[in-house]
């Protein structure tokens, strides 16, 4: 329609018009902000160093504040109804502050690997946490795309129940066909029953894929020449069930992996905080030395 006809008279129910910022623009803006902050801090630390002041105090406290801000994300998530900027804004800030914190750590330790065992443990845990953050960022960007490709959308809590119902359905279908054909019954006993009965291994959880499903589908298609038309319908149902089960497993693995990552990331954060507190106490205790 034309621009003319788009205009509507008054008394219109106002919908929810949302401001939209292009993701790329947002990314660039946030990176520039984080980079500028780091640059300013570097200049200040260089000034402190030139003034014969230990810059580690400033960088340490700034780093601690940044880690505190990074930790505050989980608190913000719990307070969804407060107008403290949307959680997505906090996540963006979390990502960029996370990158910046790695550079801050380098500034704090003077671009050298620390020499004390405790400091080494602290730095290693920090880097592990940062690495986990990077992996999590990759996961949160890739996993939705992987899941969206599936023809099935399912909530994590429903997977177990749907899988149970699918198992029962397959069992029923194969039992009904067993009177007329032993081929499918044998195939079920040897191939599909173990597939439906077992959980996937660790490797599948780490890198879920469709190789097993494709193998079963190929084997099932090879039985085609032994089957009558009605038995082929049963085989088709079996193939559909295999595909659905595979999709459910994929959902469980990908969604579960995300949940596990978040749990590990938060656990490491609190472990890091325990070490940071000890570090601060030690630093202040031995300040004179």
């Amino acid at each position: 329609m034309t621009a003319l006809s788009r205009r509507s008279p008054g008394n219109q129910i106002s919908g929810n018009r949302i401001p939209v910022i292009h993701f790329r623009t947002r990314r660039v803006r946030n990176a520039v902000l984080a980079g500028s902050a780091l640059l300013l801090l570097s200049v200040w630390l260089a000034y402190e160093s030139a003034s014969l002041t230990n810059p580690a105090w400033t960088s340490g406290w700034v780093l601690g504040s940044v880690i505190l801000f990074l930790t505050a994300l989980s608190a913000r998530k719990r307070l969804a109804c407060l107008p403290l900027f949307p959680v997505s804004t906090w996540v963006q800030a979390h990502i960029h502050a996370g990158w910046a914190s790695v550079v801050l750590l380098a500034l704090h330790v003077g671009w050298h690997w620390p020499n004390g065992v405790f400091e080494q443990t602290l730095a290693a845990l920090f880097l592990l946490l940062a690495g986990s953050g990077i992996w999590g960022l990759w996961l949160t960007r890739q996993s939705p795309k992987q899941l969206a490709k599936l023809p099935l959308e399912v909530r994590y809590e429903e997977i177990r129940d749907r899988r149970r119902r699918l198992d029962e359905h397959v069992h029923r279908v194969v039992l009904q066909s067993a009177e007329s054909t032993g081929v499918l019954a044998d195939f079920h006993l040897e191939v599909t029953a173990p597939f439906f009965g077992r959980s996937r291994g660790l490797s599948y959880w780490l890198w879920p894929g469709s190789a097993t499903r494709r193998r079963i589908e190929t084997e099932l298609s090879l039985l085609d020449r032994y089957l009558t038309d009605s038995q082929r319908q049963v085989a088709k149902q079996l193939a559909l069930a295999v595909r659905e089960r595979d999709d459910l497993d994929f959902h469980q693995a990908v969604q579960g992996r995300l949940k596990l990552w978040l749990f590990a990331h938060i656990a490491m954060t609190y472990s890091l905080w325990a070490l940071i507190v000890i570090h601060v106490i030690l630093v202040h205790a031995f300040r004179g030395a």
Partner: protein
Amino acid sequence: MAPEPVRSTNNAVIQRRPQRWSEPFGVRMTASDVERLLAIAPFRSMDRGRFPKLVPLRGLLLNDTRVSRYEEGEIIIREGDYGHSAFLILSGEVDVSLRGLPPRVLGRTSGRQQSWWDAFLSSVGAPRVREARDATPTERETVTVRDEERGARVFLQDVPGLLGDDGRLTLGAGEFFGELAALSRTPRTATVIAKGPCELLEIRWQGLRDLLRHDPALRSHIHELYRSNALRVHLRETAWLKDLSDEAVRQIADATTFESYGEFDWHHDFNKERSLDVRDRIATEPVIAREGDYPDGLILIRSGFARLSVQYDDGHRTLEYLGKGRVFGLEELVHNHRSVDQIPWQRSLRALGYVDVLRVPTPVVERWILPSLERSTERLPSLDQLRLSIESRGSRGEATVRGPRPSPWSGDGEGVSDRTEFLVEHRLLNATRAMVIDLDRCTRCDDCVRACASTHGNNPRFNRVGPIHDRLMFVQACMHCQDPVCMIGCPTGAIGRDADSGVITINDPSCIGCGTCANSCPYHNITMVETFDRQGRPLVDDATSQPIVKATKCDFCHGRPSAPACQNACPHDALVRIDLTEPTELDRWLSKRRTA
């Protein structure tokens, strides 16, 4: 009135199925009131033989109307409120306010706003019991200006001083008002105040609809009222007609015809029709303008939605949907006005659900509208533009489909590939605040559901399920429809639209748990829940021993400091509450994220 038990067995009470008039509009209406009404205009002149046996005129008056008396200064209807009834003045006079009045003057209090502290407490200390209510019901909120049960009324002091002589229009005995909002489910456009003691006949929309259907004189009278009152305002409010002279507006208003298409209760058949094949479904939609026919006038959509489509081989391809305020046919009329080569309609316009349109005849458009538009700075649309638009929209459908993900939902299989087509088929175009999730970014963390639960007494108002198209999930959460059919038939007025925000809310103390709204919602977005006290004990009706149920749905976190919680809680910008009544809004949202 509850249905009387006929007989009972050990296991069940057998009742007569409730009929249309089981719940009369006015419980105090008597046969003598009806006789009195039948003796006055317009009912006196109505041909009773035109009314079907099941819906006789006498029955209509007895069950679908009520007589109310108002005192001087009392507000009868309030601008912005949703009304489901029209009024006929039996005696006395009323003033119609021609200018908007401040909400405070109208007795409208903005709903209780939750404080930050309360919001904080509700987030961190979710109650153990879901759907917990106080065992003693709290005071009802005033949802209308007049509460018949409690006798609560709102009065205006010094109406002449408030409105002035030129700010009000006085109506007298025999005149109608409020019919437009009642019939089109739109907000009241003006406040009406009793000028002195007056007696009014209030007719609920179901009765008014039947009266109009069976009495052509009343129908033309109501149309004439609309023509003389609201139509000119409507034309004046239409931005591209703002430069017209008063004479032109008068001429256009006099020549405009009113047309209604589709069923007013479209939601009853919606889910049944969805099971039909797309082609059959389109064939059942009433045609407002057919491709290939002579363009006999400019069509303005007054309320509802219409499908804009072109013939594509043996079927129809949806180009767009048009809602309230949109115009159809300008391109063809401009072309025919400028050229000797006359063309027919290039597209078809079909009613989706119930649509009210205004048709301005072609000669009137050519005489009064086109010259004015040609003088304005706005460039008039050309036929080439129209054809380009049809072609580009046709191909856009293919371009926006990004993946071969078949939807698990019935009714959107083969042949429905375009997003517009999908929105139309699922009637999602009705949404002013649809919840849309971009599955390409959603990690399925359910933070949205948790946030909803934490702001709504530990029970989320939606589940993350819904129809999927082009990797977008249209979640089954209240969409706060432009045409909120859920409001039809609520016996207590518990469900209503907030005049300020446009959000549809349920006033919990007023809800009697009848389930009418839940049954009316064609999208199944209202849930009836059993209620408990703070200790977790179920609340049970003392008369029936049945659980006390309440209607619940998304309230868009109305009254909370930051709304909506679901959108605010999404860590990955995957979820948005978006207006789908304007097709470009979703395109705009997607265009800025999917190229990232």
